């Protein structure tokens, strides 16, 4: 029998340190749903989702009960809808509403994939698709959207970034009665991955199978506790402690993913090794960095600590899973992390520091609230900066920013639930209007050409 200490160790992880499987996400290909009309295509998408994902909530709940580990979210990701809706310019919302309805019917928390991949260029149907995003996010509830604007291989589509800045502003305006909540369901990517189980950026890439189960683990509280129990360890030892903890966490993810795929008659996809925080006390990535020795996250040394954390999580997790993928790293969403919220509120964690942190972790400027009067060009420039970091460093970066209507620096915005609350952060007043309005494409870096 397993020894008592290990058993208690596992029980404490769940009961005291908020350990959970953050998401079980079913990736579904909708390519076979395209039909003669938007209405028929929407109906096909609805039928397929309801049929394939019918049992996902029950299976996740059963697994959670049997193994004694909470599975917090059940989600669906689908083929980028810009492709599915390509013959139906101007009618994208018909399909969007069918997705939202199907997701509610099967009882999942979110559905992702209202997405477009425009990293090299934007087609006319993709332009129409991007135009549809504000209305879609305002008129659906659990549908998430993303647009990939760059890759290391292809460079960055600055024309698309210009459109996204304006689109995000419009989304905030259309959802101003909910503090711009629509923007919390949209993310702009560079080097987007096709098997990400996390929202808002999940979509089911065209290279994927028909029905795939991807699992995202979590566990910032477990890592925090492990470091707290070693107050005199040097940083090499800290990295080892994180690795060992990440190994245990990921093994559970692998177990749940394998079992869920079997019961749902789906392909086993990937385990995403991300440390995903929640606004709950004791479930914060920010507090891990502080426990490593920074008095407030955002202070000097934060980037180095985050680099250690991110690397150690990957090293520990990689050995624990036969299929690692998704975003895999540490997330630093501001509004969803109690430690980050406190640090942003104190003024020590700033946007420039967050940007630096995104160079060494997964993923990017995430769940950051900015003043409602932030110009569209400034939002575009923020996306361009992040995309440049991703492109040059050959990693995924993302921007999920909310220009909260009628709010200014110092105000607070409450999104509730896992999306949390955030102080409005300061953006620089210097204008990027001319840079963004130039348009064009940022050429790919020389190391993108690897052949």
């Amino acid at each position: 029998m397993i020894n008592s200490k290990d058993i208690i160790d596992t029980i404490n992880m769940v009961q005291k340190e908020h350990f959970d499987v953050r998401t079980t996400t079913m990736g579904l290909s909708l390519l076979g749903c395209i039909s003669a009309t938007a209405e028929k295509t929407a109906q096909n998408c609805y039928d397929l989702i309801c049929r394939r994902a019918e049992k996902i909530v029950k299976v996740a709940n059963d697994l959670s009960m049997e193994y004694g580990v909470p599975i917090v979210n059940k989600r669906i990701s689908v083929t980028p809808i810009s492709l599915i809706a390509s013959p139906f310019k101007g009618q994208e919302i018909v399909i969007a509403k069918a997705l939202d309805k199907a997701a509610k019917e099967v009882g999942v928390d979110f559905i992702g994939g209202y997405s477009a991949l425009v990293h090299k260029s934007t087609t006319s149907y993709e332009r129409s698709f991007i135009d549809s995003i504000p209305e879609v996010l305002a008129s659906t509830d659990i549908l998430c959207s993303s647009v990939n604007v760059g890759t290391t291989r292809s460079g960055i589509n600055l024309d698309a970034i210009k459109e996204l800045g304006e689109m995000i502003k419009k989304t905030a305006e259309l959802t101003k009665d909910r503090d711009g909540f629509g923007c919390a369901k949209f993310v702009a990517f560079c080097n987007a991955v096709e098997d990400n189980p996390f929202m808002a950026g999940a979509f089911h890439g065209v290279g994927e199978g028909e029905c795939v189960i991807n699992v995202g683990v979590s566990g910032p509280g477990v890592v925090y506790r492990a470091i707290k129990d070693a107050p005199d360890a040097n940083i090499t030892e800290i990295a080892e402690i994180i690795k060992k903890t990440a190994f245990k966490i990921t093994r559970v993810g692998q177990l749940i993913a394998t079992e869920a795929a079997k019961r749902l008659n789906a392909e086993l996809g990937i385990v995403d090794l991300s440390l995903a925080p929640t606004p709950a006390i004791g479930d914060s990535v920010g507090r891990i960095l502080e426990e490593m020795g920074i008095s407030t996250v955002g202070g000097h040394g934060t980037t180095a600590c985050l680099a250690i954390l991110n690397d150690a999580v990957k090293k520990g997790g990689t050995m624990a899973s036969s299929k690692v993928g998704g975003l895999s790293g540490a997330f630093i969403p501001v509004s969803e992390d109690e430690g980050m919220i406190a640090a942003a509120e104190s003024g020590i964690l700033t946007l420039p520091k967050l940007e630096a942190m995104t160079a060494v972790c997964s993923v990017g400027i995430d769940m950051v609230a900015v003043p409602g009067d932030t110009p569209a060009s400034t939002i575009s420039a923020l996306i361009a900066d992040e995309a440049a970091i991703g492109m040059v460093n050959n990693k995924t970066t993302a921007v999920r920013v909310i220009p909260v209507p009628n709010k200014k620096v110092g105000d607070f915005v409450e999104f509730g639930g896992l999306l949390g609350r955030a102080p409005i952060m300061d953006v620089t007043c210097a204008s990027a209007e001319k840079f963004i309005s130039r348009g064009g494409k940022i050429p790919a870096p020389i190391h993108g050409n690897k052949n």
Partner: protein
Amino acid sequence: MKAIITVIGEDKAGIIAGVSTLLAEKKINIEDISQTIMQGYFTMIMLVNIETSTISIEALKCDLDALGEKIGVKIILQHEDIFNAMHRI
């Protein structure tokens, strides 16, 4: 399927009797049992085989919760594989 039942709480008379009686009623065999004091708490760990159980896992967990509440301890039932996954390579 094999499961681990962990009982954590204050040491008192009747804990083992209470849990094993409940398991016997449901035709669940106890394959291994150990008890110790950990972090100041009485901790009993049982390896049980629930293949022969007359009730579902969900119902069994409910019964164990109710029993735990009655005798003032926490009783947790989990599939054995979660511990194997985490602690065995």
